[in-house]
């Protein structure tokens, strides 16, 4: 789950990190009010779930309240990478002398959390990693013991020339790791961690991504969710235990298993079709889940044919067949449907579908080809 910058900063503030002053506004008037309160130059920053806000003109430095109003007006009217900007963050400007990078992420290879720090802050860290890997200090944390103070010290000593600054800022690393561990974050990143003229450090940009699997442990976090347009459908699917991502083609796919769902999309593409979506109904699917899947799929007006590709394991083919029948009875589905159901309880499923308008196919390849044919015919 992605958080907006202002949300990430709120959490960081709670953990005692030195976040620059800032408040979020949804209208230019609100933005103006905040700027008056801060009485000095501010940053006006678009709050959208994507990078590249600066390049798109979504981040502006404003000296006067008038400038704040003007920038807020234009930014709140923007779309960045197709996402409309609904909020701007008005942040008290920091007189930045130098920028640093600090983050905690999960390292899939070492299977341990990883603290990364660099003096090359304020830029794309993946670029730094590619072009100047030696500029990044990496330190793995045993998640059972947690981050040791001496590890935090090692990080800050690698960042700052001034030993006093290094020793004083140890708590920043400790707090960031604590946030990472206690909130089950996948990423907790400060970029840049800015040093001002008075040797004080400030969090001037922040990113926090939370582990979707852990959100039930932190019910207070769910309220931070701000779905992007289009994402609502994905979330509705998620609530029903499905995994759905809309694409741009016309062949609706209902598959069990993420790998098979992707392979189905790949196969459709290979034979000249265009998948309308990724849809994984997951394991142990009940008929109701299949019904829900069809409901979501049918909201996509581009879909011209539906292809069921089920390889039963923990999913039972008869459950899927029942779901299809239930859905076609309840909703008026006029689209052609192709079904490939094999594996657990496959024969029961065949009996259930017998007599229905669903076109049975013996294999995935034949199913894909049939679906493409129907999509072009329809």
């Amino acid at each position, binding site marked *: 789950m992605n958080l907006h910058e202002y949300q990430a900063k709120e959490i960081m503030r709670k953990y005692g990190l030195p976040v620059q002053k800032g408040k979020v506004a949804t209208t230019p008037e609100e933005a103006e009010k905040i700027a008056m309160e801060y009485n000095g130059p501010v940053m006006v920053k678009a709050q959208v779930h994507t990078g590249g806000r600066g390049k798109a003109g979504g981040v502006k430095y404003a000296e006067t309240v008038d400038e704040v109003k003007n920038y807020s007006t234009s930014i709140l009217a923007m779309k960045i990478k197709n996402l409309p900007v609904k909020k701007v963050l008005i942040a008290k400007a920091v007189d930045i002398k130098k920028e640093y990078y600090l983050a905690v992420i*999960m390292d899939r290879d070492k*299977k341990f959390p990883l603290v990364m720090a660099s003096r090359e802050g304020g830029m794309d860290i993946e670029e730094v990693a590619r072009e100047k890997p030696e500029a990044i200090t990496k330190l793995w944390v045993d998640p059972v013991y947690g981050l040791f103070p001496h590890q935090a010290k090692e990080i800050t000593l690698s960042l700052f020339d001034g030993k006093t600054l290094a020793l004083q800022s140890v708590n920043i690393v400790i707090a960031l790791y604590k946030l990472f561990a206690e909130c089950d974050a996948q990423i907790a990143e400060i970029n840049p961690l800015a040093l001002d003229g008075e040797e004080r450090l400030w969090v001037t940009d922040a990113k926090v991504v939370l582990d979707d*699997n852990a959100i039930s442990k932190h019910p207070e976090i769910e309220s931070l969710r701000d779905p992007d347009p289009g994402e609502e459908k994905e979330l509705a699917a998620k609530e029903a235990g499905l995994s759905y991502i809309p694409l741009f083609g016309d062949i609706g796919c209902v598959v069990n298993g993420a790998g*098979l769902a*992707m392979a189905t*999309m790949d196969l459709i593409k290979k034979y000249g079709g265009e998948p309308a979506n990724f849809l994984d109904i997951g394991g142990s699917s009940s008929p109701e889940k299949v019904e829900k899947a069809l409901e979501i799929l049918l909201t996509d007006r581009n879909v011209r044919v539906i292809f069921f590709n089920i390889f039963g*394991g*923990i999913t039972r083919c008869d459950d899927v067949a029942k779901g299809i029948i239930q859905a076609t009875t309840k909703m008026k589905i006029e689209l052609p449907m192709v079904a490939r159901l094999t*594996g657990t309880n496959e024969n029961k499923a065949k009996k259930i579908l017998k007599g229905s308008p669903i076109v049975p196919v013996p294999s995935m390849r034949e199913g894909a080809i049939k679906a493409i044919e129907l999509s072009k015919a329809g």
Partner: protein
Amino acid sequence: MSILVDKDTRVCVQGITGRDGSFHTEKMVEYGTKVVCGVTPGKGEKNFLDIPVYDMVKDAVKKEGANTSIIFVPAKFAVDALFEAGDSGVKIVVCISEGIPVLDMSRVLKFYRERGVMLIGPNSPGLISPGKSKVGILPSNIFRKGNIGVISRSGTLTYELVSHITKSGFGESTCIGIGGDPLIGLKFIDGLKLFEEDSETEAILLVGEIGGHDEEDAADFIRDNVSKPVVAFVAGKTAPPGKRMGHAGAIISGGAGTAKEKIEKFESVGIRVASEPEEVGELFKELL
């Protein structure tokens, strides 16, 4: 031979009285797997499907000589179930449960490393050594005893591919679903090592997905350490970047982990990559 599970595998089922646990216990027993007991706290000392049920995995080891445990409990309880299994004395744990937070898994994996216990999963369909034992939820009928070792990050996609292996006249020595999560126990490299050492395995199918770079690492490992022929398949060529395709592990971020990169990597070390599932059978026909 075969790897990890065989006729001597004595299985304990954690969560045996649940919907999935009971269903797949029956299927495993039907297949001939020695399911020696189940565990459901508070239901100990009863029988279920004629299998004794205990309160603790420890008891399963002590009283029934279980050496392998399979976990079917809901995500919320799966972390403790993993710790319990890891400390019980069994040597292999297969975790079917999915939805486990990554940081919890990081702790669990350390616990397993400390004790030298092998973990398969989480979010794994389990594994099968055809004709010997099945510890998982894989549909038995698609497998046939044979000489191809299969290792996969995927569940149902594996069944699809295996069905083509079997249809092409081959069979499988062992088929392992390692699970689709970002943090898992046994990884491609660990499985490849076992297959390379296994006298019954003559060729290997590796099934990858977008996200991470385990496929790339596996390609390097195969180049340096695997003498047996390997065929690969990678799903997600049409996946849009930045989106999760169901599995938490399948994120393409910053240009790394795309299917294209993985396929190119495999080909660069001389591994044949199937362009669609059915091709897998054809490639093995060429190679064997």
